[in-house]
């Protein structure tokens, strides 16, 4: 379909221009912070001196991308129907601690153990997202407000749980509290074997490349199928594009709000699992935070489409990874946050512009084709 291809090319072109512009703007920020932009950009591609360090850098890059990708998917499900689930942050933290705790209470063969952990995480995330959904459909509470508020509840609740009911043993000298360790069968096998294929040394830090990457890919493909091919996906799309038309066509808006919110929360529940199952084996008080908020940026950057979100997550992870290298290059690492922020802003602007241009082109194309096919009527 050439029309669709046109639109896709325009989108990609817009994103590329936005990213280049973002780097240009950030060069100014780097100079202002007393660094050298060239050193900074060199740092992005500085994966370390030794082979082992390079492998570790690649692993860190991929390991960062996986939770960002899942977070982007979770946010995108809501965005698709103009539902702003800002509560991904709270949903994933609560889901992560519950899943880590439940997983530590029993021991079963690995596939069962891991499946149960995944299901618990999805269920907790989904149920937590059900609260704002129910409030919205019964009382008309704006989901933006309620999910932001529930984030605070979830964050406070997890800090309580990790110290109180779900706390495991604290090793001597440890400052952090943690849930009990998962049994060996709860750990997801890593993907270090891939490094062998390319003749690289396997990474050693963070437990290697997390195998949950595969689950994330399956999730992304599955979500694409659901959104683009099923009736449920169609009704989500219709509700997002034109609510009154969807209502008049027999789509129940309340059911859709609940379904989309719970699906979004369920996916959000999985965000913490790569880290738990791949590296730490537990949820502890310095567990990676902020992934839910980053997911909003990733979803925006990826235009709410799984493939776009994958690229956005890789880009963000690529930038995040360079923080260490930046410090070595004597550039303030917070420059990365500036770059990310500027990229998102510019991409949103670029999306708006390319979207309009694409619609214009479509109209013009239709007009031209019709103009060709139909001669003007002769005056009476």
């Amino acid at each position, binding site marked *: *379909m050439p*029309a*669709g291809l046109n639109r896709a090319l325009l989108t990609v072109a817009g994103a590329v221009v936005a990213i280049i512009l973002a780097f240009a703007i950030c060069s100014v920020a780097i100079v202002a912070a007393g660094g050298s932009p060239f050193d900074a950009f060199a740092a992005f591609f500085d994966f370390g001196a030794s082979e082992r360090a390079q492998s570790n850098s690649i692993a860190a890059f991929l390991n960062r991308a996986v939770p960002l990708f899942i977070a982007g998917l979770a946010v995108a499900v809501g965005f698709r129907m103009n539902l702003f689930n800002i509560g991904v942050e709270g949903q994933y933290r609560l889901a992560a601690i519950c899943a880590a705790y439940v997983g530590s209470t029993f021991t079963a063969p690995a596939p069962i153990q891991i499946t149960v952990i995944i299901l618990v995480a999805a269920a907790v995330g989904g149920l937590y997202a059900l609260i704002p959904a129910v409030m919205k459909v019964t009382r008309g509470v704006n989901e933006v407000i309620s999910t932001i508020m529930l984030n605070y509840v979830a964050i406070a609740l997890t800090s309580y749980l990790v110290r109180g009911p779900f706390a495991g043993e604290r090793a001597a000298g440890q400052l952090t509290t943690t849930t009990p360790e998962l049994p060996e069968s709860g750990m997801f096998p890593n993907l270090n074997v891939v490094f062998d294929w390319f003749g690289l040394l396997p990474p050693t830090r963070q437990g290697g490349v997390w195998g949950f990457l595969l689950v994330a890919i399956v999730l992304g493909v599955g979500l694409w199928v659901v959104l683009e*091919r*099923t*009736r*449920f*996906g*169609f*009704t989500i*799309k*219709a509700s997002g*594009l*034109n609510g*009154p*038309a*969807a*209502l*008049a*066509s*027999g*789509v*129940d808006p309340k059911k859709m709000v609940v379904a989309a919110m719970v699906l979004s929360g369920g996916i959000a529940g999985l965000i913490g699992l790569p880290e738990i199952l791949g590296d730490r084996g537990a949820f502890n008080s310095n567990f990676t935070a902020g992934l839910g908020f980053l997911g909003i940026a990733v979803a925006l950057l990826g235009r709410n489409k799984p493939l776009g979100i994958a690229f956005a997550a890789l880009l963000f992870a690529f930038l995040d990874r360079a923080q260490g290298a930046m410090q070595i290059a004597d550039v303030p690492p917070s420059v990365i946050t500036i770059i990310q922020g500027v990229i998102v802003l510019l991409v949103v602007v670029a999306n708006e512009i390319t979207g309009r241009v694409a*619609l*214009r*082109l*479509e*109209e*013009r*194309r*239709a*007009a031209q*084709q*019709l103009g060709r096919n*139909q001669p*003007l*009527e*002769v*005056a*009476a």
Partner: protein
Amino acid sequence: MSADTLATAKPAVELEGITKRFPGVVANHDIRITVDPGTVHAIVGENGAGKSTLMKILYGMQKPDEGTIRINGTEVGFRTPSDAIAAGIGMVHQHFMLADNLTVLENVILGAEPSKLGRLDIAAARARINDLAAGHGLRVDPDKLVEDLGVGDRQRVEILKVLYRGARILILDEPTAVLVPQEVEELFQNLRELKAEGLTVIFISHKLDEVLDIADAITVIRRGTTVASLPRGEVTSARQLAELMVGSELPTPETRESTVTERVAFEVRHLTMEAGGHHPIPKGTPVAAYAGQLRAEGKRLLLDEVAFEIHEGEILGIAGVEGNGQSELIEAIMGIRPAHGVISLAGRDISAWSTLRRREAGIGYIPEDRHRQGLLLEASLWENRVLGHQTRKPARRGIWVDRGASRRDTERIVKEYDVRTPGVDTLALALSGGNQQKLIVGREMSGAPTFLIAAHPTRGVDVGAQAAIWDHLRDARAAGLAVLLISADLDELIGLSDTIQVIYRGRLVAALDPSDITPERLGGYMTGAIAGTEET
């Protein structure tokens, strides 16, 4: 001051070679119009011919790609409507732009407030408005809230608004579309007075009888260009104008022989909707008693015990001034808004069913506002075909959307309903209004509906598409479809309907036989001027 004595004066408005290349189906191409001062100049053309674009150019909302505009002999280049207003041009939009919760006076001065020493000078404003109103015969009470005004009064407020800003040239975009015949006559009286004061009126319409009634000169636009410019005296009949407009024979909406059968396809009884939210009826109270109780309490009823039945093969027309309960009636029938009373389809009570179930049971729905309720503008045509049919063949295959079958069926609609489009993957927004509407009609006729709600089915579509849609409605009626037709176009109502019911303030006040009713008498019932009596 008459048109003749001023014929040699500089033209009030002169458009020459106006061309606007625009991404859409119709653009303006080499438009030439000369409007003499102190006249009513009508610009006629079917919907989508380019009248609105032209007026937007004249009012500074869009810039022409080529051509010149001269106002009173001076060449101008408007960048914004403010420039046009400064040059003495005022526009009365088809859809009123008034703030409901402000008074007439506040609306008129909004954006052009007179001030004295930095404070709002209400007294000066009032004096000026009263002056204008008295001078031009535009009688409105400046202290009334706009929300309490009728359509005709609101229009007068709009006209006052532009006069207040010093306009000497008035553009009226389809001013009669929202008026009943009596109000049209009042408007024309106002326009004649304005003309007598030396003001120039540009009157855009496609209602030819009205144009012949009011205009001193007429310009016809077809497919974006001016095809004829005639003084009123040279136009002999509406038919002549219509043929210039469409370049072909004019269709009429007449149904031929009656196809009404004995079988009731659809029935509504005691349908009642209260303003200010739906409340369940106390158990054991019949709807009629409940409605009576609400009336006794002085509550406003959006729908007041509406009852009718439609037989297979019958078109029931609902006439009424907009805002008298038509939208509520449709939404109650579709299950979009809750209401009391019984709705039954083929003898089965469906009043507790969801919208989806009603659709699946065979109710088709052509919505009054196709962009709001009928289409996903940013989705492809075939996805729009799926809309509303997402649970039925051919759009559905288990949990999946059957893309292949949906595409093929959309191609069928495109062919059968003559939807002019490059293909079924085109986005709906790239189509002209008439083609969008034909797609909707085709979709709603799919899946063998037994009952169809057609709300303003030909609003804003060109004459060609209008004729095609009327033909499809007639064919479906002949095949036994029951149709509820709601339209503001009285000719359409009278021409298509087997029975006409008039709705006034949420009540069906009269049942009329379309074969012996005139638009004027119908207008009388619609405004409540003629008390409701049952006749057949």
